């Protein structure tokens, strides 16, 4: 038997609601006694994933294994997992004691065997009153609510309710404890306190915790493994340190902690072009001349005197704020405004040079390099994709041809007024990349436009999407 067992395995699980994909073919295995956090913005599918593990939702496809047993179709009350709900979900008609005892009163435990006609039949019994009493009191003690058993749950504060919810779940000694943004409704001080308590409970009890949150700091503090999710897909899974130091892509880098994210060009192994400067790095193996995303954490940048020979990129300090342990500065260079944390202070307005060590420069392949849509040539000079007709040069193609339409990121134009565009969309994401914004525009048709634009757009704004006919390049689909 393997020493490290997989307690939960999620295999190719997808979930759709009315045709909309919420969780998109995820694979994840969770080891015994691990503290795993599903991290992502709202709507990324993290809660749905948790609910599928709990059994409240059934995957549209894929399987879920608990302790090696396929539980995909097992109803929640037969799964050995317990959940701490986002809004506590305490039973208002029961007092604290009875809330916690709820699961124990239902539970059947093995009680020896009986021999009948040569067959061994396992026997079950319920917990006795004194056993329940003992367990409930132990659980109350664990969450620090010893004297609260007879209290009405409606009279508790948010923090106390949360403790009851945790006790109610843990008292059943589940194999896995699921926590759905359990601290979301608490104030900051209480959150910090509960985080520490959860962490020590996890350590003492040896139960696997799966924790859902949108708070990256919470995820980094608590977890053994952080799973970053976006649009129903897992972006990266790894230890907090790995996620922070080596984000898999610009999205993860941006979501976890503060970072400087720039576009650059990979020159050759160990050399990258950053804002026109050749900077040494530790990465290799990218294609020469490939466009890459570069992530540099603010604490990895050093601010030096302007004429220091070590300086790589000249710049000027815009703001400088004392943050206790170090100074947080913004440094303007030709093409990018760096966020820097350094112990050496420079006044705003000072001319400086920036230095970064090769291993501080993190290079990632750009996830996409061009917009690509499956399209049909609908008429001469017109191609249709996302159920919308775009004027386009169709020379060499015939109506009815199935093609791939490609549009470069910087050739897509956004308009304030939806009616000025060929089609409409919503700003789903905007990431500053030094000289431009990388904007993601979601459409009604489950596919997104990726746009590089010098203008800043507000999230969720409704915009028009416009493409000049000559900027759409077509290719017959079969050629691929």
């Amino acid at each position, binding site marked *: 038997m393997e020493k490290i067992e997989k307690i939960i395995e999620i295999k190719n699980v997808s979930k759709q609601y009315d045709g909309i994909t919420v969780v998109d073919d995820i694979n994840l295995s969770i080891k015994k006694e691990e503290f795993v956090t599903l991290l992502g913005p709202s709507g990324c599918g993290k809660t749905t994933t948790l609910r599928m593990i*709990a*059994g*409240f939702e059934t995957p549209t496809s894929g399987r879920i294994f608990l302790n090696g047993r396929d539980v995909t179709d097992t*109803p*929640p*009350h037969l799964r050995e*997992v*317990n*959940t701490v*709900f*986002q*809004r506590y*979900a*305490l*039973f*208002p*008609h029961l007092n604290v004691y009875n809330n916690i005892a*709820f*699961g124990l009163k*239902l*539970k059947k435990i093995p009680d020896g065997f009986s021999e009948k006609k040569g067959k061994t039949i396992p026997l079950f019994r319920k917990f006795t009153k004194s056993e329940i009493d003992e367990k409930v009191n132990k659980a109350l003690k664990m969450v620090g609510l010893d004297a609260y058993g007879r209290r*009405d749950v*409606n009279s508790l504060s948010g923090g106390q309710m949360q403790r009851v919810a945790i006790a*109610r*779940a843990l008292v*059943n000694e589940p194999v896995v404890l699921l926590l759905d943004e359990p601290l979301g409704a608490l104030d900051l001080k209480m959150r910090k306190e509960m985080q520490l308590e959860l962490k020590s409970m996890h350590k003492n009890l040896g139960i696997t915790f799966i924790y859902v949150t949108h708070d990256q700091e919470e995820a980094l503090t608590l977890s053994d493994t952080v799973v970053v999710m976006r649009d129903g897909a897992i972006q990266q899974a790894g230890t907090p340190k790995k996620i922070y130091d080596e984000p898999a892509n610009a999205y993860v880098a941006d979501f976890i902690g503060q970072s400087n994210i720039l576009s650059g060009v990979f020159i050759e192994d160990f050399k990258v072009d950053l804002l026109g400067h050749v900077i040494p790095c530790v990465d290799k193996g990218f294609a020469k001349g490939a466009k890459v995303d570069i992530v540099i954490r603010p604490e990895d940048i050093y601010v030096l005197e302007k004429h220091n020979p070590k300086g790589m990129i000249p710049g000027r300090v815009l703001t400088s704020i004392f943050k206790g342990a170090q100074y947080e500065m913004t440094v303007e260079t030709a093409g990018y405004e760096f966020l820097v944390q350094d112990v050496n202070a420079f006044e705003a307005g000072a001319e400086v040079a920036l230095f970064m060590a090769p291993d501080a420069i993190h290079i990632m392949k750009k996830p996409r390099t061009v917009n690509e849509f499956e399209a049909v040539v609908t008429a001469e000079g017109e191609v249709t994709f996302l159920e919308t007709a775009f004027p386009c040069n169709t020379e060499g193609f015939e109506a009815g041809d199935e093609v791939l339409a490609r549009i470069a990121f910087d050739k897509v134009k956004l308009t304030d007024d939806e009616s000025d565009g060929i089609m409409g969309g919503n700003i789903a994401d905007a990431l500053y990349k030094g000289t431009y914004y990388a904007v993601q525009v979601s459409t009604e048709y489950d596919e997104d436009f990726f746009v590089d634009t010098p203008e800043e757009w507000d999230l969720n704004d409704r915009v028009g999407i416009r493409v000049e006919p000559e900027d759409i390049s077509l290719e017959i689909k079969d050629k691929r």
Partner: protein
Amino acid sequence: MALPYAVLLVVFVVVPLFIVLCYAFTASDGGFSFDGFTSVFTRNRMAILWESLKFSFFTTVICFAVAYPIAFILSNKKFNRSGVLILLFVLPMWINFLLRMLAVKTVFDFFGVGLGYIPALVGSAYDFLPFMILPIYTTLCNIDKSLTEASADLGAGSVRTFFRVTLPLSVPGVLSGSIMVFMPSLSSFAVPQLLGLNLRLFGEMIDNQFIGSAQNYNIGSAMSFVMLALVGLSMFIANRVSKKQGGIAEAKGGLW
């Protein structure tokens, strides 16, 4: 601003109540007297009052038995996506009740069912059904879905979840529904008259004192007064019980 309302209140509530009070405590010659009340508290009339209480009680029980499953099914969004179904059940409420009762009578006639106690009970239950469905339905709809999920999560199957979580949490709805049925059915007189054949209830007796053959305003008023007291008492009890339920669902789902 409040003056018109105050005037309305005085003219249509306080004054009539005062008139009832006056009649109840006077004799036919206009002098002060307890005769009205003494004739109410006779064996015969008390028996009819008891009969009325039983009739209302049965009506309430039948309504509850029919309404709860309906409300439970309708509160499940799967069956009642648009809320049209609940509307269908509540729709008859907006038809004049005499019309409804005459329709019920016609239905009984059509099937050759003779009138009497049971048809009157059925008619009465049918009459008040929406008043029971609606509050239970609202309470059930307002129960936080995560509570039933929590119950399942803690090991309760759907039957246990119903008896341990859903039913206790719907008590406020059941209570307010019961009041909505019990109180008006206590004073009903048209239903027993139309469907009950020889059924004599308290409401009908009051009616008889005012426009019927008996024609004794003093006794009628005393009887009305007793009825009012009963209604007030049942409301008081219901209030106490629902308070004891401890602000469950913050008394959501009541009709008031």
